[in-house]
């Protein structure tokens, strides 16, 4: 015979013989990673809304629970860090699929692979930029906040699309008794469980050795956190120093607080100290994840606004003495401004505020990102 020679289809150039590159391993790791990404995304968008509220939301942002932002931003960074070991483990499980042969079967297949490429790229990008941001390390040539925010939506979208595309495989491998799981070699079961336990231990170890920066009780385990609750003047870390803000003792001579409104007035530091003083215990919670509780003493912001003729619905604008900075002018919604816990603080942990913590007066409000706790306040405006 042999009058027609059929060229045999060429096989895949690379094959994998290692174990556990299967759909069950990918499903279990994917569930954990998906959960971490969901928590990270939700808390991240929440933080974005608190920090840059759209106009319609500004007066509706709640000031309670007072520990809310501390919890959500601590979770944002902790879930992101937990995802760092989970992502490479998940990619390892599915790595052979990168060499699928033929590489592209149809237009639909090409689009599917493209969406996976976007998912992987966005996942690596978000974890990498987020981790480096907590260390204030910016090796990239773009602005961190808007880009991290934009790629977060890209990541969530690609993740939803991925779940929709892979749903039959996820469903078939969801539990140990699912049909797809049962079709896999039974001998792989114990090995897979040991691998998953090891990856969870890795994620747990990474989280435990950094989460002390926001869970003060776990401070002794803080080996790799960029902040430590024990380090900082008056028992509290600092983000922006007075030197960085170009505020000096000399520039504060003759300082007066100006309060603008229907009945404007100004006060010296002594006059402020003569007003009713309150003590509150509130955390300073930074967008970079660290947080610590402290005792603050000072005057209620709503008392100051009342005196200037602001009604019970008054909100305010706070202007810092710092020369420049993205948060020099801060707007405070109604619920924050009227909360009795919101102070123009003069003291911290039983001492006069240090210059780096905002002497002579700073804002401390419940459930708000640290950058909005304006330091070196020079002016309040009823708005």
């Amino acid at each position, binding site marked *: 015979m042999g009058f027609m020679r059929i060229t045999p289809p060429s096989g895949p150039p690379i094959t994998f013989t290692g174990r556990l590159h299967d759909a069950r391993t990918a499903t279990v790791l994917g569930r954990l990673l998906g959960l971490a990404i969901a928590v990270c995304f939700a808390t991240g968008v929440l933080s974005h809304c608190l920090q840059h509220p759209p106009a319609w939301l500004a007066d509706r942002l709640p000031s309670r629970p007072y520990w809310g932002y501390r919890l959500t931003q601590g979770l944002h960074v902790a879930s992101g860090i937990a995802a760092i070991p989970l992502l490479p483990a998940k990619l390892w499980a599915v790595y052979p699929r990168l060499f699928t042969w033929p590489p592209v079967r149809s237009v639909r297949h090409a689009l599917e692979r493209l969406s996976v490429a976007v998912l992987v790229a966005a996942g690596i990008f978000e974890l990498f930029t987020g981790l480096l941001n907590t260390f204030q390390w910016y090796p990239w040539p*773009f*602005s961190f906040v*808007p880009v991290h925010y*934009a*790629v977060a939506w*890209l990541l*969530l979208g690609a993740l939803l699309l991925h*779940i929709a595309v892979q749903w039959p495989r996820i469903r078939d491998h969801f539990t140990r008794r699912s049909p797809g799981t049962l079709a896999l070699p039974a001998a792989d079961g114990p090995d897979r469980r040991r691998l998953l336990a090891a990856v969870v231990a890795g994620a747990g170890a990474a989280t435990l050795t950094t989460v002390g920066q926001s869970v003060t009780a776990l401070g002794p385990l803080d080996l*790799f956190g960029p902040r430590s609750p024990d380090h900082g003047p008056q028992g509290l870390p600092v983000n922006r*120093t007075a030197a960085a803000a170009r505020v000096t003792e000399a520039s504060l001579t003759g300082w007066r607080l100006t309060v603008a409104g229907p009945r404007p007035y100004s006060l010296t530091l002594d006059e402020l100290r003569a007003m009713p003083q309150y003590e509150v215990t509130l955390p300073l919670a930074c967008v970079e994840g660290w947080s610590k509780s402290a005792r603050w003493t000072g005057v209620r912001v709503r008392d100051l606004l009342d005196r200037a003729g602001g009604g019970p619905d008054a909100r305010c604008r706070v202007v810092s003495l710092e020369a420049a900075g993205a948060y020099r002018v801060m707007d405070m919604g109604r619920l924050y401004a009227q909360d009795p816990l919101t102070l123009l603080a003069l003291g911290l942990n039983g001492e006069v505020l240090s210059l780096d913590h905002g002497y002579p007066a700073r804002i401390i409000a419940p459930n708000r990102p640290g950058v909005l706790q304006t330091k070196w306040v020079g002016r309040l405006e009823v708005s």
Partner: protein
Amino acid sequence: MTHRYVVGGCGIALMAFGGSLLVAQPEPWRVVLWLASGVLVHDGLLAPLVIAIAALAAAAGVRLRGVARAALIVAGSLTVIALPPLLRPGGVANATVLPLDYPRNWLVAMAAVTVIWAGYAGVRACVRRAARRRPDRR
């Protein structure tokens, strides 16, 4: 089936929204370059490296399974988290940023993983030896 299309459609819509935010950035191609680099570094460098190490170990008769693999995964996870403070160039904004002794802490973490690994392996070897000596008790 309908649910899958709804979820997938939502995913495409959110990707489009994220994409539109990216395009609105100055020089979005720089971001695309960094996005692509992450995939290239992982798929072309890190993943082959891990697989090559496992293959070399297997060829040398070292079984990277069970506790040894777990110890390597935990040590690797801790090392990845420790890399930014270990490698970050330049000064810090103030004394409360990166206040810890990170090289020392990394060594402590690696020592802890090694001790736990060795301790676990040692206990397991003892238990197995005891079990072998009294096969009737099992």
